[in-house]
């Protein structure tokens, strides 16, 4: 009879501690994902309405830069007079990615030699429609490109 309580004592303590430690691990396991969840991810919004395309003075006048906007290529150009413009970089012909050409100061598509003027309108070549244009705003040191309002 005296042996039984001893065995149960050992078992009791094992179960007690086992329960406590596993319960703590369990609670931590529950809390951890919730804490990670409530801290927002790096891209804070589901639908990007605006994005920082470049820093001011990153682009010299008469140059361009391609950047992603809503998972699609977009292009930021700086005109010879210093003004910024931004367009969708998806060519309206067969969806190749366009680029800025400093030599003839137009937006050019390498696939079939299409050219767009600095307003995104078709200058020559096969595209059926102009490039979609975006709004550009300077905010402090950033050049922000956003969907047209």
């Amino acid at each position, binding site marked *: 009879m005296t042996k039984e309580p001893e065995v*149960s004592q050992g*078992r*009791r303590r094992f*179960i*007690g501690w*086992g*329960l406590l430690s*596993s*319960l703590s*691990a*369990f609670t931590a*396991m529950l809390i951890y994902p919730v804490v990670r969840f409530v801290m927002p991810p790096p891209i804070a919004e589901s639908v990007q309405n605006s994005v920082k395309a470049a820093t001011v003075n990153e682009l010299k006048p008469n140059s361009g830069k391609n950047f*992603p906007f809503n*998972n*699609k*290529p977009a292009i930021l150009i700086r005109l010879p007079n210093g003004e910024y413009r931004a367009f969708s970089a998806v060519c309206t012909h*067969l*969806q*190749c*990615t366009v680029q800025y050409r400093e030599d003839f100061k137009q937006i050019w598509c*390498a*696939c*079939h*030699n299409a050219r767009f003027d600095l307003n995104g309108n078709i200058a020559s*070549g*096969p595209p*059926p429609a102009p490039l979609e244009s975006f709004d550009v705003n300077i905010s402090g040191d950033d050049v922000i490109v956003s969907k047209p309002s």
Partner: protein
Amino acid sequence: MKTYRIVLVLILLTGYFAAGQENHCITCHQELDASLALPVSEMKDGVHFLSGILCNDCHGGDPTTDDPELSMDPAKGFVGTPQFKDIAILCAGCHSDAVYMRKFNPNVSTEQYSRYQTSQHGILQAQGDIKVATCTSCHGVHNIKKVSDPTATVYPVNLADQCGKCHADKEYMQEYGIDTQQLEHYKNSVHAKMLYDQGDIGAPTCNDCHGNHGATPPGITSIAYVCGNCHMIQQEYFTASPHKTGFDEMGFSECGECHGNHDIQQTNDEMLGVDEPALCINCHDSDSDGYAVAMKLRTDIDSLKAVIGIAEKMIFDAQKAGVEVVDEEMNLAKAQESLVHYRTMIHTFSKEKVNETFKAGLESSDNAYKIGQQALKELSNRRILLIIMVLLTLLVATLLIFYIKQKENHIH
């Protein structure tokens, strides 16, 4: 010629000053019956009338009097209906005069007549042929509209039919011994589809390849340059390729040999390669270099399409399961672009030149595929994580049951 021009200008000036006065040609003729009144009603829509150029400016005569003897007096320059052989010269009287035309449009061209003289129509007409086209045959007589006017006979959408009035008429063209199927073929083409169905007036019609005033078919050795006016890149590649000299030597029609001339269809990958209905094997035997190039070009395209397809499926599956696919999509777009690029580059007909594009395409779709694989791996990682969580839960539950049982025993 010069005398005639001066006379015409004087008449014009008279007409100009007389503009404030009534033009009796018009007022008389509109009272007459059908065939004589028609020119008046037709005129009213025309560009000449709107610019103040009236009957007497072409037909001569004196519009200030309503006496037929005086107004239609040859002494006053009246010529009546001009003879066929004189029409071009009559029009050229104004339209070749840059100084004169500047008044109406500083930029309008004035070389139409000199071009016409080099054209097949002009050459035959100078020899006395009255069946060929002259100015009025295409532009109309009294109701000539500006070329940019959609109701003009020579507006791009209307032009092919205008040419077809003669060139599609078998009987009419019989004595010239040239084909009359061109209009029908053209209407079947991808260019016609763009022009008529999509309303894209940038699409070529007869005059864009043959010229309008200087209308002549492009010669065999210049076809690539003509097509190259729009299809610049393909022309560049073709001209540098072995096909250019080869085709020219054998009298083949450069672009037309594979693409046709009037009945040009939308290209497809089947035209390339060594299996029917590919065009390459029409010339290249299975032991030739050309055959090997054709085979590589087609196999490359098929491979690119296949890997892009696989990557696309992966994106679709991952997306549906809710896994992030941003970078994958960008890579896929790049791969697609390489494919578009490759299809243009085949005109180099060179295994070496296309290789870089091919490799780029493979690399992009490979990247997309890898990212997709990673995404799906992430899915299975999640499962492992959750299974661990489930095991931990079961552990706690089991220990809890032991705890409960133990409490019961302890009580009893």
